[in-house]
């Protein structure tokens, strides 16, 4: 089991995230509007929980100093022997909301490995699926969000139809 991650929910992070999904809803950026709304505070957008990647010190999909990076610099990849696999793609994502996450929450995120399975596909060869469950608990130990994601590693790039 991976170490727990600590995800502080911050208003500026919510603002940046809402901009990135092109959502201009005032509930994500305007404290005065949010306080007068039914929810009563700024809330995190429904898919925000996955931004927990920002708080994983060893996240493999973030460039870090002194760690070879698989993206391009001088060359198309910084690795000497890039893996023939194209890395992981996201196949499924499911969230259950027990309450709305809001700025000021400090969530502890526990990661549990789920099932793994394989399937053959015409468009990408052998597909290796793996499931990950993440439980987001608040400062009082209450469950806020449960996330179940399924990642897939493809044998070759997905053919475009």
């Amino acid at each position, binding site marked *: 089991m991976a170490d727990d991650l600590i995800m502080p929910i911050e208003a500026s992070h919510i603002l940046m995230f809402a901009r*990135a999904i092109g959502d201009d809803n005032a509930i994500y950026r305007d404290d005065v509007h949010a306080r007068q*709304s039914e929810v009563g505070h700024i809330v995190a957008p429904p898919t925000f929980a996955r931004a927990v990647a920002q708080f994983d010190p060893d996240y493999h*999909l973030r460039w870090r100093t002194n760690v070879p990076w698989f993206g391009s610099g001088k060359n198309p990849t910084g690795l000497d022997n890039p893996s023939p696999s*194209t890395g992981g793609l996201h196949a499924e*994502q499911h969230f259950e*909301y027990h309450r709305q996450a809001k700025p000021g929450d400090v969530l502890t995120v526990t990661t549990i490995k789920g099932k793994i399975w394989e399937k053959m596909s015409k468009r990408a060869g052998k597909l290796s699926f793996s499931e990950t469950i993440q439980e987001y608990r608040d400062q009082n130990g209450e469950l806020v969000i449960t996330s179940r994601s399924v990642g897939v590693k493809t044998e070759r*790039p997905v053919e475009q139809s």
Partner: protein
Amino acid sequence: MPLSASKLNVGDKYEEVVVDDLTRTQLVMYAGASGDYNPLHTDDLYSKEIAGYPGVFAHGMLSMGLTGKMLTNYVGDGRLTKFGVRFTNQVWPGDTLTSKATVIEIREESDEHFVDLMLETMNQDGKTVVTGSASARVDP
């Protein structure tokens, strides 16, 4: 305005264009906000020459985030109880996506009312890129 169970019918539909002509800049913004810097989504050189794709493509979670924007516009803020998707096709720069929710059930559970929705997001060619489902709390 939140939805009301008494005014909803099975088969009701709501749809929205959630992105028009998706830009590479938006992919960079999504990488920065989400923390997913996989070069497949922001690094054309890597995506073409190493990964073997026609170029960069959108994070699955961006497609889900765009679908979620339609969803919260429909059911209201802070009303979702469940939201799940499958990513069925990749989304590329230049794509225009339309997300649609269809009411499949309206139910009451311990004095609270809920709507269950089926979700689909399609690109400009009518190809489905996201399918899914969601549940939300609604007014009586």
